[in-house]
């Protein structure tokens, strides 16, 4: 046995083989993030005539393990926009800190106490469209640096003309807008439902807040049953001219996976 201090606490070569230090090499190609680690699943969002509704469950998975069950994946920016995060949770934390600093910068010149009394943000503050453009540039730069932030983001709020605004950005910097949007599994499972509610801007502009919330809940229900990385605890935000209404501890009511007990013929069951 090697008793020299420099060997203390190290796996023994005679038991485990020589330590492979190749990944510690400082020269040669560098590996940045190649896959997400702790992840959030779908975020869904849909416009209605006065604003946007967004929802995401409160789960952060570690692989297939339901690791954290109280994670807040909808973040408010400057009391006037909401960002929904799918994908890597630590990259979400980074973005959250970054956006916090951006919000502080914004407050230098736009004194919140000078805001109009009707609840709207003072003119000149970054709106959802500005924020979306900024995040797109950020994500695209990181992808070109070969060090992407492993997220897909939905940005909801109002544009410069105070019209509802909803857009997405992914880890490649791809960005687009749509009357309804979903990330991750939601783009396969929730989008068809939301498109039934509104497939065009015109249709979305004729829908009410209540209708939009109803459809969002319906989508969350479907996701809870069909997406294996989902949860019945979720957050839902409504953005309008009046600001952001965010509820972070909602429960899909009267839902149960109990029926699964009786299902036979799947997985490791032999009977």
């Amino acid at each position, binding site marked *: 046995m090697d008793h020299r201090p420099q060997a203390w606490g190290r796996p023994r070569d005679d038991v485990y083989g020589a330590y492979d230090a190749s990944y510690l090499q400082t020269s040669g190609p560098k590996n940045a993030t190649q896959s997400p680690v702790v992840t959030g699943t779908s975020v869904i969002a849909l416009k209605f005539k006065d604003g946007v509704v967004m929802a995401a469950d409160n789960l952060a998975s570690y692989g297939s393990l339901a690791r954290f069950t109280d994670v807040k994946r909808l973040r408010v920016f400057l009391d006037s926009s909401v960002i929904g995060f799918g994908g890597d949770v630590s990259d979400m934390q980074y973005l959250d800190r970054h956006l916090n600093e951006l919000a502080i910068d914004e407050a230098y*010149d736009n004194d919140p106490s000078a805001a109009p009394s009707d609840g709207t943000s003072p*003119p*000149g503050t970054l709106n959802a*469209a*500005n924020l979306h*453009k900024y995040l797109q*540039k950020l994500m695209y730069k990181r992808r070109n640096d070969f060090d992407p932030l492993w997220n897909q983001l939905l940005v909801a709020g109002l544009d*410069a*003309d*105070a019209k509802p605004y909803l857009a997405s950005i992914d880890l490649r910097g791809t960005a687009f807008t749509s009357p309804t949007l979903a990330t991750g599994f939601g783009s396969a499972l929730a989008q068809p439902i939301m498109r039934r509610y509104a497939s065009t801007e015109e249709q979305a502009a004729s829908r009410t807040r209540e209708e939009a919330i109803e459809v969002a809940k319906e989508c969350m229900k479907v996701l809870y049953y069909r997406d294996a990385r989902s949860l019945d605890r979720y957050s839902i935000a409504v953005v309008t001219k009046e600001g952001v209404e965010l509820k972070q501890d909602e429960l899909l009511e009267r839902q149960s996976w109990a029926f699964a007990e009786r299902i036979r013929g799947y997985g490791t069951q032999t009977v």
Partner: protein
Amino acid sequence: MFRNNYDNDSVTFSPQGRIFQVEYAAEAVKQGSVVVGIASKTHVVLVAIKRNAEELSSYQKKLFQIDEHVGIAIAGLTSDARVLSNFMKQQCLGHRLTYGRNMPVRSLVDMIGSKAQINTQHYGKRPYGVGLLVAGADENGPHLFEFQPSGMTEEMVAFAIGARSQMARTYLEKNLDAFADCGREELVRHGLKALKESLVQDKELTVENTSVAIVGVAKAKDGTTKMEPFKVFDGQDVNAWIGGAADDKEAAAAEGMDVDDA
């Protein structure tokens, strides 16, 4: 060689706490021909007198567009103005690229202020020898700023800098209350009238020596904003305005002549 021991550079305070180099730089602004700016609730106008070095040479431009929504009027060293103008153009483009909107005019002006201040605190640098009037419109409406070589930037309702500009400022102070509700044309008229006050005797506004620039913004009833992008007018495009700015005395004189003819 020097007037006193404290005016050799911009890193020495005089015993009274003044920095003479910065004050001398402000003198360079007064060497430039006069420029006037006025803001209303909807528009900002800049007007300027252009100079030519000699009879056959062209006139030096005084008004420059920075971005769709901002422009400047300069008085002082033109080459220093170009440094600031290029910087401002880059900032506006960068802001448009990252946020997809017009750069707020105050942020822009603050940036050149900070840039200029550095030149007044480090050895081997000199203050900019130029003053600017910055006219722009953003989500907070129209704005007019004055920039000085010291790095001082202030938002004004109306202002004039350059040679003999005190006369123009006196005119502006007299008519200050009228500006807020002025329309575009009225504002230009006031601008040119102020400009005239600063002219040396028997010099006149002509299509050759007069520049006008306008930028505007108005909030429509449905909440959308309508922009009139910054635009500079020269030559024949300012002819009608010059005619419109003929003061009452001139107009009376012209009328008097008519009477005589009759």
